[in-house]
């Protein structure tokens, strides 16, 4: 097959990346309209279910190697300080301690993850590797640090006051917002604030590094094995193929685990020096101090509209509490992209604070911004006296309002219609009640990217026993991508998904695969897997054609059999593969570029029904209707689970999750799961989930991403439902009983 280099654009969480990639010509036929796609589109249980339910699934934290050292990090207890004394030699003298790294030490070609000027409580100062965790802890205790404690910033307002920005504030203008706002028939001003949400993946950030003469292997709980590889290779001056990154099973990430992180860099440096494998695992508290968070934000909107509810202009400001690192995510994207609006001014100020570095968290920026803008839009609807769904329809746009480019597909209007039907939107005013418990129903729109893109490569092999393997260069953080790969190969090979082995999570097996993030993974890899499987199918049918003397075009693969279309031939596929001996048939596939001149986006609509006890202030989410356009659905079972996960994390965000910082010390007071509340099984509402998107006609296989979409509109819909129930708006998430009672003036 001929390969060529192509230039392609991919949108990664709102940032457009231009990449050159090698792609092969793809002659895989598309699904024909109405033709069976089985098992694509049918519910398929996870292929790794047995490993996950017997405890044999090996996560990074489970990796134990002979001679393994355990590493423990010394972290600053102060929000801002200088280390004035640190006894590295005392730590080295502790029995069992094998290696100690102090401030400034680390891989030769990378900035040290260790500092003597910790700028947040939890910043890493030193690390000790020892024979046992106890010895490492004793080594850390022996470091006996002393600090000069400095002033700190722990709120967005203080940081803004000091004009201390992580990056320069930005302004984006469309049209003439000043003129349009002053001419507008109706204006609405609205402010919303959201707290820092902590990821709390149940598997903490972790790495195990094994430095050998012939190369370095790092087991890393990472969402991007290839990014992890290049970071490590660069940091140590190694060639990428001298580094192997392994992530067999992963216990969640939600955006916080791109690359190898400081765990990988420190474990590798310790292993290089100690000549022993080293494991470094964050504790839960370290996780919540130093491993990232969804940025808190304060959002202000001034909306100008016509009397009949058409958006004329929006001026919006977002102040984002960045902490000491990370990048500002597009909090004002919903203002820019969801509705037609000719005039905009969007200002974003990423404020530095003495808190850990922020990290992407499922739909970073966009989820927070949707929470603010979709509620502000409801305020406008109320002011002009229009139904909330109607005002969204009224401001619908068929092209990207910023660039004017068309979308490859957009099922948003359909999503409004279906969601309204499923939720019983018409009867919503009858819900409210006038007793102690009030009910309300609220809506919000969802916008996200999700095209994926190259590079993404797949290989499919089949041998004698006709049990195929699919190899892909990605990692499955729990989303079910590997199962989806098996489903896709199964359709071409006619062999049940459960009999297909998927190899992933190992950079030494195959070329680049997508990171697990940005709702890009499956949309990137799906066409590559199908292409590789199709190539194997073609070879099998070619051999069968010779063997049975029937034209290959009259043969098909189904249920483990080779069948002729006229039904006269039915032979097990092993009739052909059995002749392979020790050889195998293999096929490769690669992801082609996205279409030029068009935007690929996912869309959706959610409607939440809530009950609020006006006596206690407790809000219960009773029902969420989630309707999304994600193109073709590969595995509805996995897709529903993704929706449940997104909705539930958003319920946490809306009702209970909030990092609390002590204003007198700048330290996080709820870094443990006892005080930082996440939803439990008791918080799960009824969720009605439907996918209304047709397969995207401009993408191979028509698949768009799903990781982020379900989390985006839920909290906004809950906010709108609460306002509907109470007749007052709460401006600050989470909507805790205290805030509800305050809003009621109780």
């Amino acid at each position, binding site marked *: 097959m001929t390969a060529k280099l192509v230039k392609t654009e991919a949108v990664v969480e709102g940032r457009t990346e231009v990449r050159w990639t090698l792609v092969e010509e793809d002659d895989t036929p598309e699904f024909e309209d109405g033709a069976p796609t089985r098992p694509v589109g049918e519910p398929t249980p996870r292929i790794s279910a047995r490993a996950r339910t017997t405890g044999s699934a090996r996560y990074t934290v489970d990796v134990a190697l002979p001679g393994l050292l355990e590493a423990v990090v010394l972290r600053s207890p102060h929000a801002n300080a200088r280390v004035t004394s640190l006894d590295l030699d005392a730590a080295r003298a502790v029995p069992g301690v094998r290696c100690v790294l102090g401030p400034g030490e680390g891989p030769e070609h990378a900035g040290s993850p260790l500092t003597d000027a910790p700028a947040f409580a939890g910043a890493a100062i030193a690390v000790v590797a020892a024979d046992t965790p106890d010895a490492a802890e004793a080594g850390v205790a022996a470091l006996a640090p002393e600090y000069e404690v400095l002033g700190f910033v722990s709120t967005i307002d203080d940081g803004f006051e000091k004009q201390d920005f992580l990056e320069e504030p930005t302004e984006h203008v469309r049209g003439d917002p000043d003129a349009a706002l002053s001419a507008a028939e109706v204006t609405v001003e609205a402010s919303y604030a959201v707290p820092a949400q902590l*990821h709390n993946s149940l598997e903490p950030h972790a790495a195990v590094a094994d430095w050998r003469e012939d190369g370095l292997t790092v087991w890393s709980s990472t969402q991007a094995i290839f990014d992890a590889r290049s970071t490590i290779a660069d940091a140590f001056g190694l060639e990428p193929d001298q580094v192997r990154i392994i992530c067999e099973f992963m216990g969640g990430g939600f955006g916080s685990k791109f690359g190898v992180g400081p765990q990988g860099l420190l474990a590798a440096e310790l292993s290089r020096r100690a000549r022993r494998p080293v494991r470094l695992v964050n504790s839960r508290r370290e996780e919540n101090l130093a491993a990232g968070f969804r940025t808190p934000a304060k959002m202000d909107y001034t909306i100008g509209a016509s009397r009949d509810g058409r958006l004329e202009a929006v001026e919006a400001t977002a102040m984002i509490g960045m902490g000491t690192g990370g990048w500002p995510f597009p909090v004002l994207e919903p203002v820019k992209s969801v509705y037609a609006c000719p005039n905009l001014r969007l200002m974003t100020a990423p404020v530095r604070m003495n808190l850990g570095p922020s990290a992407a968290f499922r739909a970073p920026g966009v989820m927070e911004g949707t929470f603010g803008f979709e509620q502000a839009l409801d305020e406008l609807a109320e002011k002009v006296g229009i139904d909330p769904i109607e005002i969204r329809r009224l401001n619908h746009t068929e092209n990207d309002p910023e660039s004017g480019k068309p979308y490859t597909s957009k099922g948003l209007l359909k999503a409004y219609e279906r969601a309204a039907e499923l939720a019983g939107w018409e009867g919503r005013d009858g819900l409210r009640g006038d007793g102690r418990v009030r009910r309300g129903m609220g809506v919000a729109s969802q916008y996200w990217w999700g095209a994926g893109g190259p590079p993404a490569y797949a290989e499919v092999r089949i041998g004698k026993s006709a049990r195929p393997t699919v190899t892909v260069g990605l990692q499955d953080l729990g989303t079910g991508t590997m199962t989806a790969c098996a489903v896709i190969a199964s359709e071409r090979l006619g062999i049940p998904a459960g009999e297909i082995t998927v190899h992933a999570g190992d950079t030494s097996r195959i070329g680049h695969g997508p990171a697990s993030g940005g709702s890009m993974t499956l949309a990137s890899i799906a066409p590559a897997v199908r292409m590789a499987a199709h190539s194997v199918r073609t070879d099998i049918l070619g051999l069968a054609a010779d063997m049975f003397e029937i034209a290959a075009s009259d043969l098909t693969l189904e249920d483990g059999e080779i069948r002729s279309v006229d039904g006269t031939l039915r032979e097990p596929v092993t009739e052909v593969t059995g002749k392979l001996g020790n050889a195998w048939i293999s096929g490769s596939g690669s992801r082609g570029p996205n279409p030029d001149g068009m935007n690929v986006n996912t869309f959706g609509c959610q409607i939440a029904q809530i009950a609020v006890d006006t006596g206690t202030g407790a809000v219960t989410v009773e029902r969420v209707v989630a309707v999304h356009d994600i193109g073709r659905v590969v595995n509805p079972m996995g897709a529903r689970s993704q929706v449940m996960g997104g909705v539930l994390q958003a319920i946490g965000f809306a009702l209970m999750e909030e990092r609390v910082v002590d204003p007198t010390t700048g330290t996080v007071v709820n870094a443990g799961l*006892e005080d930082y509340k996440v939803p439990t099984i008791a918080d799960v509402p009824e969720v009605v989930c439907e996918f209304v998107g047709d397969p995207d006609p401009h993408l191979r296989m028509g698949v768009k991403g799903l990781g982020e979409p379900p989390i985006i509109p839920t909290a906004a819909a809950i906010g709108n439902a609460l306002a509907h129930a109470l007749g007052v708006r709460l401006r600050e998430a989470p909507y805790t009983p205290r805030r509800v009672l305050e809003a009621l003036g109780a």
Partner: protein
Amino acid sequence: MQVRLTINGQPHELDVAPHRSLADVLRTDLAMTGTKVACAEGTCGSCTVLLDGRAVLSCLTFASACDSSKVATVEGSTPLLERLRDAFTAHDGFQCGFCTPGQLMSAVALLQRTPRPSRAEIRTAMAGNLCRCGAYEGIEQAVAAAAEAG
């Protein structure tokens, strides 16, 4: 300290320091890494195992205090555990799977105690097992289905 444990029916004799947790001993000394530790402070339920038939948080349980006890972990095999495995698979009761061993063991304890739990009883019994991926709906259905199949 010498500790004798029967783990999933197998006798073990171990020499453990008195301060070490049962979770740590299972994972480190016995390489039984199915039991997960997500918080090490009794707040998440990932480390749930059965100690003489009762669900306990093994991160908060001293191994040295378990002498002569029977321990059941996710690596075991009983008809009930197998039923739950099948049900978790059929109802997609997990995503990343990191909480799954703890969920399964809590479910075993529940169904041993209450073979036909109501949905409310399932929710109460399982509320101490956090799942950040949000697989609770599948977990609840799986526990109900396994009870039904029993």
